[in-house]
């Protein structure tokens, strides 16, 4: 289990190698990489071109929140390895924002836990996105779809 919050970009290949190397019990590794899109596309809301994105976070609380999310995934699924790397600071379209990787003996568990981590970190980790657009700066509003995606993992 490992969580990192950093300003610098990350090397996907090197990160994934560290997750799997030496662990021969991993049959499936599910990975998600979130990237900055040049267009903000939210259901009919606005479609502004994005020149840059600045991610603010709450140092200290962010790491704790991500560790708790990761621990929850490990409680729910039989996982061999988990990794979350989330950047903050200024990023341009095409740049990587976040990496989530989950290794498990079984591909189903790896996929489910990876989706769970991505859904939960979007709604439970203290990050805020500020978009730099031709019309000026604007804070990204919370996305109802993200809440719905996160809610499907809530225990009944």
């Amino acid at each position, binding site marked *: 289990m490992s969580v990192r919050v950093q300003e610098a970009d990350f090397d996907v290949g090197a990160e994934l190698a560290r997750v799997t190397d030496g662990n021969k019990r991993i049959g499936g590794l599910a990975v998600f990489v979130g990237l900055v899109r040049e267009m903000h596309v939210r259901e009919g809301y606005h479609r502004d071109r994005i020149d840059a994105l600045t991610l603010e976070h709450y140092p200290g609380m962010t790491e704790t929140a991500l560790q708790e999310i990761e621990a929850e995934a490990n409680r729910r699924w039989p996982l061999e390895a988990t990794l979350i790397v989330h950047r903050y600071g200024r990023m341009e379209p095409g740049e990587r924002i976040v990496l989530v990787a989950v290794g498990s003996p079984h591909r189903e568990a790896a996929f489910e836990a990876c989706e769970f981590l991505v859904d939960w970190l979007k709604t439970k980790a203290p990050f*805020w996105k500020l978009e730099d657009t031709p019309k000026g700066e604007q804070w990204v509003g919370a996305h109802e779809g993200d809440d719905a995606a996160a809610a499907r993992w809530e225990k009944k």
Partner: protein
Amino acid sequence: MKIRYFAWMKRTVGVPEEEVAPPDGTDTVGDLVVWLRGRSPGHAEALAEGAAFGAAVDQRTATFDVKLAGAREVAFFPPFTGG
């Protein structure tokens, strides 16, 4: 007690953080919000009733009924938009 503001709330309040000494009777996060509104028009706007914001007490997400007893740091922020 340290108060921290994030994202647009930081700009609306005008400072990223401040040290405050709320009066006796400020028992919960909700009480603190009401008291902070009186500090400036920026505070009143950022922490307005009906504004969509959440709070954390000592870096853990907290609802407005959470007690402040012993809290060193309370943060206010808009909904998270990471990932």
